[in-house]
């Protein structure tokens, strides 16, 4: 186009540069607009994020398989090299665990008897969805992974995600066939926890390092390196007693926890539906919002309407007989 000199070129060339500059400024402003939108309308952004996860999940589902098999191969080579030591270690661990098994059997019998005596109501039944990790979004700014299960499989926002070792994170957005899991090490993650031995309550706050912090710990709390950290179940987001990690360091101003899982080895995760709605579900939020209006709008009692059998009100005379 540049070959054609002439009046047209003389008019359009500056016009085009002006247009380019205008487009550039417009894009800069829309980037900042997006940042504001991301802060303001979280529900909309969540939906878009879930949709984009759905969009790439078929590709990632296929592509992550060769990556997983390469990982398996390196694992195998490593295992072959360390076969002897590993065997010795497992032998010792097995002896140790057999002793624990005996203890656990005795305790579970005793526990069952005591529960019978005390009329204990058992916690809600657990529904697990197992899924594969298909993407690790990560790096320096966010700690999250994508799993190949979504609302299709019964996964919804806020559910606990656990690995063989313990709690990994929670479902941040659930798409139709894929969801994003926010790891407990992410800077946006807060999990109510309890120290196993001392029963001190605290929050486990991620800070984008591999060692999340214990925050809101009381001043007289007795925490030492090696203490196990479990979910406390407060807030109704997670059930109590899921292992999370071990206290790795205690200093003047920070208690850090080493999570049970190793992020680069996450392969299969289980999404646990404890039938707890948590504080994160949209229904809860809507309920809490509509609760404010309930008194002003809906004052009449529930009267069943329509044709059909109307549930009979209990007859006091009949009961008295």
């Amino acid at each position: 186009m540049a070959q054609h000199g002439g009046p047209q070129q003389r008019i359009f060339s500056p016009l085009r540069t002006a247009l380019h500059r205008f487009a550039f400024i417009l894009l800069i402003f829309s980037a900042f607009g997006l940042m504001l939108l991301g802060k303001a309308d979280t529900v909309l952004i969540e939906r878009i994020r879930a949709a984009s996860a759905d969009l790439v999940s078929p590709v990632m589902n296929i592509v992550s398989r060769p990556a997983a098999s390469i990982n398996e191969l390196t694992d195998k080579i490593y295992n072959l090299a360390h076969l002897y030591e590993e065997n010795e270690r497992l032998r010792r661990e097995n002896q140790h665990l057999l002793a624990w098994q005996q203890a656990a059997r005795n305790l579970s019998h005793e526990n069952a008897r005591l529960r019978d005596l005390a009329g204990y109501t058992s916690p809600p039944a657990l529904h697990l969805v197992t899924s594969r990790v298909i993407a690790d979004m990560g790096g320096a700014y966010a700690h999250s992974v994508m799993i190949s299960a979504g609302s299709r499989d019964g996964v919804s926002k806020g559910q606990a995600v656990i690995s063989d070792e313990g709690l990994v994170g929670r479902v941040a957005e659930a798409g139709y066939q894929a969801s994003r899991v926010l790891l407990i090490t992410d800077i946006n993650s807060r999990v109510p926890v309890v120290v196993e031995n001392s029963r001190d309550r605290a929050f486990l706050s991620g800070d984008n390092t591999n060692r999340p912090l214990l925050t809101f710990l009381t001043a007289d709390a007795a925490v030492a390196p090696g203490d196990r950290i479990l979910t406390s179940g407060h807030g109704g987001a997670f059930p109590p007693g899921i292992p999370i990690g071990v206290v790795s360091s205690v200093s003047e101003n920070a208690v850090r926890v080493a999570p049970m899982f190793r992020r680069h080895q996450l392969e299969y995760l289980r999404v646990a539906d404890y039938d707890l709605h948590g504080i994160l579900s949209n229904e809860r939020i809507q309920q809490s919002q509509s609760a404010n209006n309930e008194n002003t709008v809906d004052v009449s009692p529930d009267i069943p309407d329509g044709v059909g059998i109307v549930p009979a009100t209990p007859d006091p005379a009949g009961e008295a007989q």
Partner: protein
Amino acid sequence: MKPGVWQRLDIIARGLFPAFSVFVLLLINLLPISVPLLSTASPALALMAVFYWSVNRPDLLTGVTAFLLGLLQDLLMGLPLGVSSLVLLLVQTGSASQGRFFHNKPFSVMWWGFALVAIPALLVQWLLSSALIGALLPIKATLISYVLTAVLFPTVAWVLARAQNSLLRYV
């Protein structure tokens, strides 16, 4: 002679290749790789490709494309929305205007150029992400990410150059 429909479609498809290559690199960035280092800090592959194409073919990877690819990166990686859009847009505009400087120079000049461009790019990303999340993110992960990005650039650039030579010679 007027080009036929298929020929025109072919040209359009080839023209979309730079944007597509950035998308593929984004997906590669997402692959779960069991290397401990890579799970804490990953190389910014999309940044490399955006730099490469805006130096070599700024006509095929425009600012709008860079903006949209950044948006996709933010959506997929769970980053604060708009940050990558801004960074990639700035990198695209900056490198496209300086693109001529790198023409007919040895590859090492372009490598140095990229290493220089990546510093403010990752710094802006770190600062804006920290500001939007509301807490200072650990700078160590960003530093590791920068080193990985700078070291791996020749590999990515080599692949892209091969693709450019074979697919985009006449486009």
